[in-house]
């Protein structure tokens, strides 16, 4: 028997004062918190809270490829394992990884590859584990953002960071950074990611209905949001290096 209480959608996604249901302006991001080096056993790791999203990412590698036949003689491979906790969504997710998780893993992997120098690591693999413990809107963008940090934390050489955000349309208006309810009840959703080294889009998905003009406006909104999120990523990395420096100067590390 399935759940009987449904997650009801509100009739309107804007309040009377023109703000969104969570009080944000149209182009305002939800609160974002990032931290690197949070897990002791991985080669690199990061933690992110973005609205209600709570996500851990960890990187192992370069290491041996299992199963062996996946190894490439001329380059390293990037393997992304995106998973949702059973309790991260309204209706309990089944524990086994589903098709959606496989698809998103591939999408994230394709998005991160352009910044890596995989040709320098023939025969090996970088494995990125991303676990969503609480999910809100924009989960895949949050995952890309935190995975890029985990790769940086692992010391993997990168052309640049990658930053992702979803923009979209609700009640006929274009907005930045859709929350869960805006994603489900809204009309269009455009998750995208930027690779800073060439300032091109490395993730681009769209679902909805839009004409060309509106579509260009969406891309403009995304561009603005990228910069703000990028700052938070850089801060998280800096914070760790400052901590390490302080430990050195206090003589705790050598």
């Amino acid at each position, binding site marked *: 028997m*399935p*759940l*009987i209480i*449904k*997650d009801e959608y509100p009739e309107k996604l804007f309040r009377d004062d023109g703000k969104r249901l969570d009080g944000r302006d149209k182009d305002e991001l939800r609160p974002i918190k990032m931290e690197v080096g949070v897990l002791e056993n991985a080669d690199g790791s990061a933690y992110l809270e973005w609205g209600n999203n709570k996500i851990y990412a960890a990187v192992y590698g370069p290491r041996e490829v299992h199963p062996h*036949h996946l190894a490439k003689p001329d380059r390293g491979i990037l393997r992304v394992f995106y998973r949702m906790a059973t309790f991260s969504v309204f209706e309990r997710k089944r524990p086994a990884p589903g*098709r959606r998780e*496989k*698809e998103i*893993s*591939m*999408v994230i992997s*394709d998005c991160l*590859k*352009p910044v890596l120098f995989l040709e320098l690591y023939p025969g090996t693999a970088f494995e990125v584990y991303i676990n969503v413990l609480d999910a809100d809107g924009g989960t895949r963008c949050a995952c890309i953002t935190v995975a890029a940090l985990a790769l940086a934390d692992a010391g993997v050489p990168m052309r640049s960071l990658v930053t992702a955000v979803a923009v979209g349309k609700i009640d006929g208006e274009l907005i930045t950074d859709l929350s869960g309810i805006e994603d489900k009840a809204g009309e269009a959703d*455009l998750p995208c990611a930027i*690779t800073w080294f*060439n*300032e*091109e*889009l*490395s*993730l*681009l*998905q*769209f*679902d*909805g*209905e*839009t*004409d*060309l003009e509106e*579509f*260009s406006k969406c*891309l403009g909104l995304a*561009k603005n949001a990228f910069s703000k999120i990028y700052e938070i990523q850089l801060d998280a990395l800096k914070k760790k290096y400052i901590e390490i420096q302080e430990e050195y100067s206090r003589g705790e590390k050598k």
Partner: protein
Amino acid sequence: MMNIKRVISTIEKNYILSNLKKEERIDGRGLWQQRDWSVKSNVIASAEGSAEVSLGKTQVITGVKYDVGTPFPDLPNEGVCTFMAELLPLASPLFERGPPNEQSIELARVVDRGIRHADCVQTKKLCIKEKKAVYIIFVDIYVINYSGNLIDAGGISALTALISSQIPEGKWENEEVVWTGKYWKGDTLVNELPIVLTYGKIGDIIFLDPSLPEELVCDGRISISVTEDKITSIQKSGFATFSIEEIEMLSKKSIKFGKKIRKDLNLWQYKL
């Protein structure tokens, strides 16, 4: 499983690339030219709808089946339409046996999303009795020959199979489904004709409808689904990146190409 055919030589790659730089393709097409289409409907007697579609030498067969089930509690009067794709090993030595892999999941998902978001399948019409009985429509895509660009061929085949389908009409009587003997035709199911267009990118060169060798050497692809004047779905794949200008250019082109394909193929002719 290392397969010798999976490796394309550097010479071949360079040859394809140097042609593309001259805006030429190894099969003689221009950058924005699709291969030829062939569409046949009603090819599977056991299916409620079906289509055999070729795009160049790429060949897919899609069949529609139905079942009756209870609706999801939060959508008590909507039917369900699900897409599956299978990359048969006979279509290419690149395809392995086994459960759905990333590539087949992606094919099904991109076709699904292009159709779903164009409001193409009228799931609200697929309700027999609110809260009690709705149709479940299965659209299953089988790849018979793989010669590049499965997504565009899959999209047209799924649309055609849906348009050509006949689903028995059911009524709710005495707490069970009773069949009236009539049929819902494709125009009950299908509302819009979204066309999906896939582009390859190598270096900074972009081209429509990648053939197999082009697909094997390209850095990435982007698939754009369009209705008459709207974009309804986009999926980038592979490790290519695209500038915003490129995306805008491809969106515009897709609406133009979509119109042409919609007119050329005239899919409504396949309604029974």
